[in-house]
Structures are given as structure tokens and as C-alpha cells.
């Protein structure tokens, strides 16, 4: 009996060393909704990332007939045109490109910083631990949107890279708190204590035990951060305090410009509705994938 449980414990250690456990991946592939939305998300990101290389910008129809034209299949006018005859499809493609790069870069950078600092804080404790906890408290004092509205004024005129920077330097904090909590709880578990008593170096413990075990939590936190960054960035751009359409199109400022021009120039709903639709699809898919990953990594009990 004891032999069996020892074997089971050994097996668990071997399994925990993998970054994403094979069982979790298998559980993820068995969720059709999560997999489909994941594929849609990848497709949208690919189109946004590469699509701009295949269109000539700006695609303007300068004839009167094409001004403020509703969406049609004819001549690829799928998203309609705005009041001066620019194709909303092309503008949305460029907006998607900027928004997606900003969101992905900010999420990846913030997660990297969070993992680095959060795991040192969780593993070592000490002043960094205290500092991270207190900084998290400070970030919770104001609504996030207020913080970024103020911070963005420092970066005017805001460009995509400045926005990425601003989002990164604030949004690693909540992720770091999650990573810190996870690492400090893993640190107390038997297999880490065993490795410590065997004389493993900190580096080895971190790379072989802590990071792989915490990877699930980190992935879940990063996915929810991605959705949050998309929303925040779009909201700020929408209010013209973020990236402006004069510099770069983003999904947020396209929606903002379209909405304003509905009143000012009598533009049709498609000028804000189509970029908003793309944003909506991205957000729904990101949330679905995030929930799917969370469910695969930490399966809930059957309902």
C-alpha cells in the first residue's frame, strides 16, 4: 500500500515537471466551444497581423456614390464606407493590427515582469514581497480607467508603443500578486521541500518545480489580462485620450470616430458597429478560451 502511494507520489512529481500537463491539454481539446473560439481568435490575430501587408492603404473610393455606403459584398465593401468614402474594412484591418499588437505586447510584457517579480516575492519574501503587496493596494485605490486616463495625458500624443508601455507598467501588478500567492503556496509543498533538502539550487527549484507547477495559474491570469487590456485600451482610445485616428487607427478610436460622426456627418451605424463587432468577437472568444483553459487546468467537480 505504502509502496503504491510512493509510486503515485513519484508519478505526480514527474507529471508536475511538464509546463502544461498533458492531461490538461487533453481536457482542453475535448471542449469544442473553447477550441472553436481559440481557432477564431488565432484566425483574427493572423488576419490582423498579416492582413495589412496585402491591402493598399488608404482604400478610398473618391466617387460620390461611395460616400457613406452601407456594407455590400460588391467590390469587397464588406464593412461599408465612411463619410469621405474610406473603406471601413481596411481601416478596421489597420485598427485590428494596432490594437492586437498593443494588447498582445502589453500582456506578454506584463506577464513576464509579473512572473519574475512575483515569484521572487513569493519564494524569498522580504522587502520585495511587502512592496508588491502594498503597490497592489495602491492600484486598487482608484478605478483603473481613471488611473489610465490620467497617465495617458503624460504620453500625449499617445502612440501604440507608448500605450503598450503605460499599460505594461501598471498591469503587471495584479498578475504579480496572483503569481506571488501561487508560488508561496507551492513552496510549502512536500516536493519542493524535498528538493530543497536534497540541496537543489534556487534556480533549479524555480525552473524545474515552481514555474511548471504555477504555469497553469499564470496562463489563466494572462488570458484574463489580455481581455482586460483590450477593453481598457479600446475605452481610452474611444474617448480620444488614447491613440488618435490622426496617428494610428485602433479598434477603440475607430468606434469613437464612427460614433461621433453618426451625429456630426450622419454616418451609418456600420462605421462604429463593424469595428465594435470585431472587438466583441475578440473579447467573447478570449473569455471563452480563458474559461476553457481554467477548466482544463483546474477541473471543477461535475455539475
Amino acid at each position, binding site marked *: 500500500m505504502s509502496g503504491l502511494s510512493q509510486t503515485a507520489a513519484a508519478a505526480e512529481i514527474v507529471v508536475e515537471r511538464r509546463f502544461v500537463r498533458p492531461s490538461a491539454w487533453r481536457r482542453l481539446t475535448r471542449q469544442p466551444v473553447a477550441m472553436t473560439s481559440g481557432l477564431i481568435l488565432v484566425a483574427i490575430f493572423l488576419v490582423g497581423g498579416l492582413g495589412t501587408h496585402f491591402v493598399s492603404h488608404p482604400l478610398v473610393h473618391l466617387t460620390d456614390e461611395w460616400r457613406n455606403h452601407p456594407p455590400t459584398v460588391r467590390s469587397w465593401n464588406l464593412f461599408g464606407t465612411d463619410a469621405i468614402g474610406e473603406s471601413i474594412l481596411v481601416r478596421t484591418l489597420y485598427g485590428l493590427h494596432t490594437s492586437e499588437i498593443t494588447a498582445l505586447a502589453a500582456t506578454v510584457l506584463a506577464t513576464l515582469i509579473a512572473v519574475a517579480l512575483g515569484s521572487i516575492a513569493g519564494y524569498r519574501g522580504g522587502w520585495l514581497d511587502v512592496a508588491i503587496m502594498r503597490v497592489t493596494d495602491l492600484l486598487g485605490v482608484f478605478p483603473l480607467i481613471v488611473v489610465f486616463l490620467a497617465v495617458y495625458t503624460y504620453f*500625449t500624443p499617445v502612440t501604440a508603443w507608448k500605450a503598450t508601455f503605460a499599460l505594461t507598467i501598471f498591469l503587471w501588478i495584479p498578475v504579480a500578486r496572483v503569481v506571488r500567492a501561487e508560488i508561496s503556496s507551492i513552496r510549502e509543498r512536500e516536493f519542493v521541500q524535498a528538493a530543497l533538502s536534497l540541496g537543489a539550487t534556487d534556480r533549479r527549484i524555480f525552473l524545474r518545480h515552481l514555474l511548471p507547477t504555477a504555469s497553469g495559474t499564470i496562463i489563466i491570469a494572462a488570458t484574463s489580462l489580455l481581455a482586460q487590456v483590450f477593453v481598457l485600451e479600446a475605452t481610452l482610445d474611444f474617448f480620444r485620450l488614447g491613440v488618435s485616428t490622426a496617428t494610428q487607427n485602433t479598434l477603440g478610436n475607430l468606434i469613437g470616430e464612427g460614433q461621433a460622426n453618426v451625429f456630426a456627418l450622419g454616418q451609418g451605424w456600420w462605421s462604429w458597429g463593424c469595428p465594435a463587432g470585431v472587438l466583441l468577437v475578440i473579447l467573447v472568444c478570449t473569455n471563452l478560451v480563458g474559461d476553457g483553459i481554467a477548466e482544463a487546468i483546474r477541473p471543477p467537480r461535475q455539475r
Partner: protein
Amino acid sequence: MEGMGAFILRRLALGLLAMFVALSGSFFFFAAKFLPLSETPMLHSYWTWLRGIPSGRSLNDGLLGGHLVSTVGHAFGRTMLLLALTLVIVVVIAIPLGCLAASLRGSVVDYTVRIATYVAWAVPVFVVAILFQQGFGRIPGGWGTGWFPYIGWAGECPNGQGIDPHNFQCPAGGHGLTHVGQVIYHLLLPALALALGFIGLNARYLRNSVVDALDAPFVTVARAKGLPERLVVMRHALRNAFVAFVPAVVSDIGVLFGGALVVDVIFQLRGLGTLFIGLLALDADGNTPVDTYELQLMLLFAAGVMLAASLLGEMLLALFDPRTRLD
């Protein structure tokens, strides 16, 4: 409840300390950035501001003149009214929706509610706000149904929108009860837009906790003694699900507040959001003075709401659920 008072006091003290540090940080940020103070030594202006707080001078007398408490307080009142109406809508819609989905678990209704709540939570609040504004607002030449005024507070018509072409006056806001009705009528669309996401979130949470409660032994007992299913859900399952639901809704107020600022700008209610963004946008050319004291007062109100919401949420959780450990 022995440790309750001490716990709340400690949280309050920590919260106030964090608020003080954050407000100092924002003061330095604004003072370095915006004009009237960016030309004076920063520590000096910080000290002047700090020294004026106990007497209320830095809170009320604007750097560029004007009574801040009346301007900002007025806007804050509007935002809070929007928030209150939103909370009522969230509770009134989310509870029946969650219960319905839970008691019909696995049915078409359940799946529809789950998908709808999912999408509702995923849509950014500003997109919902535009959609509702154009779909249900009375926009001249718009495609919507025109059930509600699309911008402005009762008795106001920002930018002359909705103005009466005969006497060039805004539509009357009414007096007494009519005024209350008008205010709610004007707030309904913004509040619905703000509520939608949180209805999604809370209906989903409530459904899951009612489903959990329906599987619990005490519900089986309630069914065994012959209670009708409606009473089982309402008296037993829902009451237990409330333990988690009410504190969750209350702590959401902080997040809702951020959304209220966004909605406020889109519907031009002249609340805190309009005021804040209006002040920040002043500086777009880089040399228009911006009243740092006014910004600070707004941040103070915002921080107060956030702190109150989080404290109240924890207090309610501790009150309802004796298992919650206070430490």
C-alpha cells in the same frame, strides 16, 4: 462578531493610508504635468495643498477660482444616482434570471441564459452604451426606436440637442414627482447600459450557486417533506445562494463606478466622468491651465466610493457567512 469592529477599523485605517499615498502620488503627477502648478516648486505646492486640507481650503477653493465642492459634488451626486439606479436594475433582473436558469438546469432556457450572460459580460460598457443610445434613444434621423432621450439630464439639452425649435428652450424637467420621474426616465437608458454586463456576471454567479445549493442535502430534505419546487428554490436554495451574492454585488460597486464614468460621458449626463475627461482634455494643447485641486477632489470622491464598496462588501460577507475568517 467580537473581532468585527477591530477588523473593520484596521481595514479602514489601511485603506485611508493607501488613499493618502495614492492621492499624494496623483498630486505630484498632476502638479508636474498641468500648468498653474508646473511652474512652482513641486514640494511647496504639495505642502500648500496638504496644509489646506484640514480647513477644507484645498478641497473647496479652486486654484483657478470657483467653489469645487459644489461643482464636483453636484457631478458626484449625478454619478451616484446613476450607480444606485444601476444597482437596482442589476438586482431586479439578475436574481430572477439566475433562479430561472438554475431551476431549469440543462434546458434550452438555461443554455440561452448562459450564452446571453456570457456575451453581456464580455461586451465593453462603452459599446453597450452606444448600442443602447442609438437603438433606443430619440436621435434625430436615427434608426432606433426612440423610446428614451438619448443624452442629457432631465431639463437639460447638451449642445442644444433635443431643443424645442419653437421657443428655443430645453424640454422642461418638471417639478416635484414629475421631476423625479423625468430624472429616472433620463437615467434609465444609461443605467441599463451600465447594468447589462453586471447582470450577466451576477446572473451567472447566482445560477451556479443556486445550482450548488439545489444539490445540497438540505434541499433534498425540503423536497422530501413535500414543499413545492417554487418554495424550495425561493426559501432554501436562493437564501443560501444570497450569502455569496449580496457581498459580491456590493464589492462590484467599485468596478461599476469606473463604468459609470464611461457611460456618463457617452450620455452627457455631466457627472464625474464628463467633468474628469473634460478637465484632462483641456490640456490637449499643453498650455491651458488645469485645476489640479479639482482633479484631486474628484479622485478623492472616487477613492472614497471604492474604499466604501470594498469595506461594505467584506462586512456583509462576514455578517452573512460565519465561516468567513477575519484576519
